[in-house]
């Protein structure tokens, strides 16, 4: 497995930003890796799954599945980005 590059993580963060904007249009926020999903962004578990699901067209289905499988353990935007990056690398 190749570690994710900065450009990978920037790309994932940009995709997450677009998904977040769709899920929370009335609460504009520029995502940062340190943002806490619940405490800072007020994303409940189903909101998080909505964000991830919106990205189904941009990632391999297995990647989305892996992220959803581990969603309960993800607490920050940075962890979410890492999860996508790791799952994408695993998927090859």
């Amino acid at each position, binding site marked *: 497995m190749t570690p994710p590059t900065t450009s990978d993580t920037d790309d994932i963060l940009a995709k997450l930003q677009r998904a977040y904007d769709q899920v929370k249009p*009335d609460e504009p926020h520029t995502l940062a890796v340190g943002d806490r999903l619940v405490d800072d962004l007020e994303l*409940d*578990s*189903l909101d998080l*799954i909505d964000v991830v*699901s919106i990205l189904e067209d941009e990632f391999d289905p297995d990647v989305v599945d892996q992220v*959803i499988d581990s*969603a309960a353990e993800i607490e920050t935007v940075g962890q979410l980005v890492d999860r996508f990056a790791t799952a994408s690398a695993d998927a090859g």
Partner: protein
Amino acid sequence: MDPVDTVLVFEGQGAKEVPGDPPVDLFALAPVDAQTAIVRHQLARARSWLSDPDRSDVGVLGQSLGELTALVVAGAVDEDDALTLVRLRAELPAALLEPRDWTMASLTRVAPADAEAAAEDLALWVIGWNGPADCIVVGETEAFEALKPRVRLRPSTYRTLPVVHPYHTPLMQPVADEMAETLAGMDVRDPTLPVLSPTGPRAVTTADEARAVVVEALVSPVSWTATLAFAVARWAPTRWRECGPSASLYRFAWKNGLDTDWGEA
């Protein structure tokens, strides 16, 4: 087509709190008090919205408990009578139904029809058809546990709701019968604003129809996807405004393909 400018939308029970200073923790309240707080909050926001005469061109639409709020805003039911119905709706199930351990949950990434097929042999019903891959189910807790692997539920793809009775299922018939008797003695009027009911869905234009939807909603699923489409076709609204407390229905607007001006009242 009977166009309206704005749809006022009222959610059902499920919010954690009613906003305020301080906010009201709905999970700390008895169900009847939580439901009363939700309806009062929704009424206050709707009245505030409607206090601007430029905003009078509205239709109303409520989901589950919110349907009672919609009927008050439409002038079909008095507020005091609606709160009596809220109390009965909250308290009668415990008095009339056999006690069981119920779980109500909101599921995502599960098509309602798939959940229904998977629950065919279970004491579990799909009671909310909220989107192409979103639904609400209620069933005995054991049945819900059995459903989980059948529809590949994961801890993050469902959320249990703070509801302990099988609303919107045939099991509520004894409660519906009592509610019908109470409604027969209430002064229910023809709505003065356009109303749609997610039971069907259908338009509510007379006092008799208002009585009927309150009763039938107790034993019927909430067809939210069909209701949104029905509202668009009938009203062609330019904007939708949720009246709280949590504005949870926006997610089902975009999931059902509504590209529209949706916000909070």
